[in-house]
């Protein structure tokens, strides 16, 4: 186990930010912390970095307690949202800075900076100042500065949020390649679930300072533990219907009584002109190219359908809701697994 967080608690005075977090991260894993803003994901990351103190609990890296270790001694590298490049240093100096701090010789620094720059395609930019670089170039310099000294752990704090969409997806792939290449442990914070899904080996969904669920992207997508995770993961957002309304709009036998809410992902709703279970008036339509998104209401509940069927605004969309892809949640918004239901039945 690479990094272990035991009973981590963080408070500023009387203001609790993170009530308690327990988490283990394995060697070589790409872990993504995801959650809405203010969920404590950045605070958690900064505690791992050592930029925030830990109010109580234990943090261990390679089985050594990290709590009181100064950030400069943690062998943890971090890429900041703003990149935090040193504006007065050239690219080469920026990348070489951690090595200089580690006390390497000039020749060694030069050599490592060169090889890092080469791998990041920065060689031609080495003499420039950060202000003379584009956003993507700055991003690569920031990454270069992080990888140059081969740290135990990489931390990324929303590193792609300042890039435009195209660059962002390029960088995403690049980061994934980097991880496969370096095989090092990375912790990545984002509020963007697409980034989380595409990058992570393991996603940690945080809400109000607590972990809602930990799992692989597929696990989270297929069996979200609660409505929060269900709504946060996957795009467009999962549809939720109260159990009684669900009964009316689907032609299904009665649901188990413990089911409170039923969730259906928009792409799993069938458009079925021949045998619809209900009709939805299309209020808004968004073409995606390969499919369309239809927005409407089912008995007063907002509902989204993704389908390649061709309908227009104002049309009645015939839909049927299959049983196999439903997610059931109880009154506490917790998942009810099919096993539990059948067991109860």
């Amino acid at each position: 186990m690479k990094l272990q967080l035991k009973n981590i608690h963080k408070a500023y005075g009387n203001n609790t930010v993170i009530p308690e977090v327990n988490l283990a991260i394995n060697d070589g894993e790409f872990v993504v912390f995801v959650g809405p803003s203010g969920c404590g994901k950045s605070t958690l990351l900064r505690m791992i970095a050592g930029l925030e103190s830990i109010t109580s609990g234990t943090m261990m890296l390679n089985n050594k307690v990290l709590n009181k270790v100064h950030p400069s001694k943690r062998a943890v590298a971090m890429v900041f949202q703003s990149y935090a490049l040193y504006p007065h240093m050239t690219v080469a100096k920026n990348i070489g800075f951690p090595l200089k701090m580690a006390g390497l010789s000039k020749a060694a620094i030069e050599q490592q900076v060169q090889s890092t720059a080469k791998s990041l395609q920065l060689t031609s930019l080495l003499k420039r100042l950060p202000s003379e670089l584009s956003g993507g170039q700055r991003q690569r310099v920031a990454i270069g500065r992080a990888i140059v000294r081969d740290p135990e752990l990489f931390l990324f704090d929303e590193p792609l949020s300042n890039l435009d969409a195209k660059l962002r997806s390029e960088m995403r792939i690049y980061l994934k390649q980097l991880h496969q290449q370096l095989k090092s442990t990375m912790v990545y914070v984002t509020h963007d679930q697409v980034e989380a899904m595409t990058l992570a080996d393991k996603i940690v969904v945080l809400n109000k300072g607590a972990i809602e669920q930990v799992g692989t992207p597929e696990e989270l997508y297929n069996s979200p533990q609660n409505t929060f995770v269900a709504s946060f993961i996957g795009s467009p957002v999962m549809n939720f219907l109260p159990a009684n309304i669900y009964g009316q709009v689907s032609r299904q036998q009665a649901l188990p009584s413990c089911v409170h809410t039923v969730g259906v992902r928009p792409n799993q709703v069938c458009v079925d002109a021949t045998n619809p279970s209900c009709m939805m008036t299309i209020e808004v339509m968004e073409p995606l190219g390969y499919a369309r998104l239809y927005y409407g209401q089912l008995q007063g509940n907002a509902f989204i359908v993704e389908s390649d069927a061709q309908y227009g605004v104002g049309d009645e969309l015939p839909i049927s809701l299959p049983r196999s892809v439903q997610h059931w949640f109880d009154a506490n918004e917790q998942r009810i697994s099919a096993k539990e239901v059948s067991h109860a039945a």
Partner: protein
Amino acid sequence: MNARVHGIVVWCCTGLFLLPIVWMFGTAFKSPNEILNAGASLLPTTLSFDSWLAVWQGSLFTLISNTVLVSLSATVVSVVVAFFAAYGLVRYRFPAKLDYLFLLLVLIIKMMPPIVVAIPLYSLMNQLSLLNSKAGLILAYQVYTLPFCIWMLLGFIRDIPLEIEEAGAMDGAHLFRRLLHIVFPLCAPGLVATSIFAMILGWNEFLFSLLFIHSPDKLTIPLFISNFMTEDGTAWGELMVIGIISSIPMLVLASYMQRYLLRGFSMGLK
């Protein structure tokens, strides 16, 4: 506004600002008789070096080197001490708003009329055996320069994004290396401006120098300047010459330092 028009506008403003200085230089090269009947003339009709010869004397070099030594040392001490203090005040959390209290106290020191400080300070200096010593004068100047420098530097340090320092910490730089490699260079424009002001304060300081120093070989320039304005009258030519001579070292310093001032880095986010 295109660059050319812009340049012309600025140079015109500069010229207006410069008029009294032109007059100063003109008067320094006028003969005493021409000074008497100067009127609206700025420049001398014939160059006269009478005033320069009258000012030029052996002790001038000692005076200038004393002044350079004292004001430069006072500046270095102030800027370094203030840099640390301002950094601490900006970045660290204090209990019970002690930081504001400290800053306010510093401000009060800056507000004190030097004259009332001078009398008790004289006793203090006497007890510390620092009267009539350059070290004592350098120390005494801290009363003016240190509060000033602390307040000046606050803003410049605050402007450095925290993330850059955090990055420094992550890259392995402990406090003092961070200060040296990151905060210090990034504050350069502010430090330069602050040093220039502190230097000027020391350079033109009159009162403490008058009271605390009595050996002629330790005196500073401002006392020498006052020699040319006496009850017997003002020696205009000489006064202007010493005005020029005493301002040249500062001008050279400022011209040298201005590139740091105008450099400045984009510390923006994008």
